[in-house]
């Protein structure tokens, strides 16, 4: 026997699988993705008697078909990695449905232990489950557990180890009858498969035949690539399918499912399960639902919850964010003082510290937001939100769960697309998730708001709030319409079935919430951090190199010298102030010249002839290019480009005045820029997060289509507007 054992945890969603995983492994866990898919893979380990036991938390599934990624991942893991044992965590409150998955594991034959979880609730509700009898009838060890308190986990591990010793790696597929229509052909096919040795080294042959009858896409494609055997099997399936349709008006798949439930019923009806009255928790849950999903009160409460969560995320998150910001500010100040001025200092301060600081600045936001999401998910409210919102979002090809990412991304202005995009992982349906990911960044995030406020205040006097209001409405409309367009073009396809459990309300465990939150924040900091560091250095380089040629910087130097030389021996304060101002003006002009001379400046200038169509000059271009790194940069770059020095996004009145005086700017230009900023590519941090949740291909697609769309919209507004109201 190997010294390292591996045990897989499987079970229905909401059965307490992850809680059990946390109880077993504590903090010794590692979260990653399964290769090639974005399904989360959690691994942890524990030591028993000096033996290391690897525990893999399989994604929660109701069944083992090839339809959803989660199910496929779980199945492939069992088949390919062949863990020594599966622990099926069962919510004992709904024993029969949970056993449906267990029966499918039994059909595969993998050694298994059943953990009847939430036994405390079962006992309280007055139900009785005869664990001993259940174990005898199924021929599988059964352990009672309460994952929340860790009760029974010792017994569970001991039983698991014993079962591993006993089974010693042998798989014993359960053979149940699927009735007179299926059984004969199943037998036939099993023999055929065994004779042809079709995949028999990896899969049990009867299981393969069963999957064929169930129309399993993965197995069928394996069969098709093998040739003759696949064809023969297909023909048999076809015949029995036709027969079932003609005689029973049913499909083999449905009949098999019926017989599985029949088998389960035959087990539970033998005194395993005694129910007295209704379950307390269900009744309580119903009463809560009567309020929380009420026709009128429900949506209002939901808006309240979403708004509350939004406020909490950004007010609570701001506090540690402030600490981090001042920490990095101190760091860059220290570096500025310690190091001599020059390239290296600039790289360290403006590139590395600013870049890493910018990335880590998001961590508190992400932690608070995930704490909120984890709470909503674990408590069961998330499912209710999806339930209430689904009818509306479905029109646009989205899912009820899409509402959360939209809100967090800035559906209420001031959000952030990064946690928004990461929040989209709560969507279990791949197409809807992708559409949500690709459209959530349209929302006015906190970094875009200063741009809107600047332009709103400068060009739409006194109505900045109105501008922001309409921008928010516009963003929602855009996001939904684009989602609809995407779902009807590139991500076309049937809506993923909504069939969704509404789990009873539960108080989430504090430990679980902390682990979830920490994990996600860490993942983000680690993965996104590396890429974003590289990109921020790149962007720094683009805006710094090549430096101004010597003779030009000398000109600025000479101007400064000239002013200083004019200084009287004993200047009064008024003169000092004036001189300082003049020198600052020269510094700013130099910064402007340097920026224009840099690669970014050249790119901005080169694009000018093109972007002129939307009313953008080279200065705007550079600012927008900088906004690619982070939207916060737009205002400050615009400040540099207009030789205003560093402009803080919060106090941009001077820049606003400057823009208003500029002959190049007018209301139309401002509107065009607002539209562009509203729509164009998400910042790099978001793009990286997006790539993590989907793929780099989709992330790049998002960058491209949003920018093209933004440019088209801005140009249209600028051109058409210019036609009607000549500025």
């Amino acid at each position: 026997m190997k010294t390292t054992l591996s045990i897989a945890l499987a079970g229905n969603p909401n059965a307490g699988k992850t809680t059990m995983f946390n109880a077993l492994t504590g903090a010794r866990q590692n979260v990653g993705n399964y290769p090639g898919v974005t399904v989360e893979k959690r691994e942890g380990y524990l030591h028993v008697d000096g033996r290391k036991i690897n525990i893999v938390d399989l994604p929660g599934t109701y069944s083992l078909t090839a339809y959803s990624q989660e199910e496929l991942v779980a199945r492939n893991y069992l088949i390919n990695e062949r863990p020594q044992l599966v622990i099926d965590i069962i919510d004992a409150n709904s024993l029969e449905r949970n056993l449906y998955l267990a029966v499918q594991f039994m059909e595969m034959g993998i050694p298994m232990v059943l953990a009847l979880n939430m036994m405390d609730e079962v006992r309280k509700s007055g139900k009785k489950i005869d664990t001993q009898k259940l174990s005898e009838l199924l021929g599988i060890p059964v352990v009672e557990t309460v994952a929340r308190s860790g009760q029974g986990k010792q017994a569970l591990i001991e039983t698991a180890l014993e079962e591993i010793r006993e089974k010693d790696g042998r798989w014993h597929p359960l053979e149940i009858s699927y009735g007179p229509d299926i059984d004969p052909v199943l037998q036939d096919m099993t023999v055929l498969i065994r004779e042809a040795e079709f995949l028999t080294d990896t899969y049990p042959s009867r299981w393969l035949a069963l999957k064929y009858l169930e129309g399993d896409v993965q197995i069928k494609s394996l069969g098709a690539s093998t040739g003759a055997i696949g064809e023969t099997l297909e023909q048999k399936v076809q015949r029995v399918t036709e027969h079932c349709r003609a005689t029973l008006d049913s499909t083999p798949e449905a009949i098999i499912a019926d017989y599985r439930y029949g088998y389960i019923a035959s087990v539970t009806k033998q005194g395993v399960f005694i129910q007295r009255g209704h379950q307390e928790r269900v009744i309580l849950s119903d009463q809560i639902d009567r309020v929380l999903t009420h026709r009128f009160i429900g949506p209002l409460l939901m808006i309240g919850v979403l708004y509350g969560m939004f406020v909490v995320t950004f007010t609570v998150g701001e506090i540690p964010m402030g600490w981090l910001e001042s920490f990095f500010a101190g760091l860059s100040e220290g570096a500025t003082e310690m190091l001599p001025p020059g390239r290296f200092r600039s790289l360290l301060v403006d590139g590395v510290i600013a870049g890493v600081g910018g990335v880590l600045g998001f961590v508190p936001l992400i932690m608070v937001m995930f704490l909120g999401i984890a709470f909503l998910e674990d408590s069961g409210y998330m499912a209710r939100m999806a339930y209430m919102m689904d009818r509306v979002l479905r029109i646009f090809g989205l899912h009820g769960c899409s509402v959360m990412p939209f809100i967090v991304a800035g559906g209420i202005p001031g959000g952030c697309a990064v946690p928004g995009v990461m929040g989209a992982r709560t969507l279990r349906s791949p197409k809807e998730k992708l559409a949500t990911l690709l459209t959530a960044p349209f929302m006015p995030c906190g970094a875009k708001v200063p741009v809107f406020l600047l332009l709103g205040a400068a060009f739409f006097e006194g109505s900045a709030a109105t501008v922001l209001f309409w921008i928010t409405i516009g963003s929602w409309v855009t996001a939904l319409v684009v989602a609809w367009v995407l779902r009807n073009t590139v991500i076309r396809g049937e809506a993923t079935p909504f069939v969704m459990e509404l789990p009873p309300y539960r108080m989430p465990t504090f430990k679980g919430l902390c682990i979830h939150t920490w994990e996600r924040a860490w993942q983000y900091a680690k993965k996104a951090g590396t890429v974003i560091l590289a990109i921020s250095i790149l962007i720094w380089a683009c805006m710094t190199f090549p430096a101004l040629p010597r003779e030009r910087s000398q000109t600025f130097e000479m101007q400064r010298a000239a002013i200083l030389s004019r200084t009287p021996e004993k200047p009064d304060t008024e003169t000092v102030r004036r001189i300082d101002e003049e020198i600052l003006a020269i510094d700013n002009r130099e910064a402007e010249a340097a920026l224009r001379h840099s690669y970014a400046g050249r790119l901005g200038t080169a694009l000018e002839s093109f972007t002129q169509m939307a009313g953008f000059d080279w200065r705007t271009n550079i600012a927008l290019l900088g906004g690619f790194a982070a939207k916060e940069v737009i205002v400050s770059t615009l400040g540099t480009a207009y030789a205003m020095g560093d402009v803080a996004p919060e106090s941009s009145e001077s820049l606003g005045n400057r823009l208003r005086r500029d002959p190049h700017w007018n209301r139309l230009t401002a509107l065009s820029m607002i539209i562009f900023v509203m729509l164009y590519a998400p910042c790099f941090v978001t793009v990286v997060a997006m790539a993590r949740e989907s793929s780099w291909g989709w992330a790049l697609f998002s960058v491209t289509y949003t920018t093209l769309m933004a440019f088209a919209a801005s140009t249209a507004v600028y051109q058409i507007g210019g036609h009607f109201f000549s500025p």
Partner: protein
Amino acid sequence: MVLKDVSNGERIKLLAVDGGCNLQCRLAGMGLVPGMEVTVISNIPGRPIILETYGIRLSLCQKMASRIRVLKTNNAAATHPSPPSIYPGGVPPKASICEPGVRCRRRLCRLRQMQVNQTGTIHSVKAQGELGRRIRDMGLIPNTEITVVGRAPLKDPVALRLRDFTLSLRNNEADFITVEVSGGGCEDDAEHCACG
């Protein structure tokens, strides 16, 4: 012997149905349970068999009939004189399930039409593919008792209570599920009775 081999006009007693729950339930839903007596009105090879029981006519396909074991009772037409076959060619009546005018207390309606707090038993699930599988994975199979516990603010999706948990589905998904409700009506009173 099996029902298939019974000739026209003979009276028989049902012994057993060799079939899965699906077939048994379906037959039971039509009123054919072991132990009852029926008269074979018409049995022409290749055509559906027509039976009569308590004045109600039913038609069955030959394949189904081959799985119903019966016993001849030989007191043909003693209690229920078999009327002359009104379908000489063995053409099944269109409704084929029950005689028009016969009132049936149990009614079938689509899940979408059920009212909140109404309880019923799933009669059939016609969904296929992924949707069908998801529905079955959740335990929504024939003969399961469900209660509609709520509808979302815009009346869609619908929330159902199975015995020990709650789930929700969209109305267009619920359309694939037919439910037998006892008493009360559906939202738009279903026209067909539970026999079919």
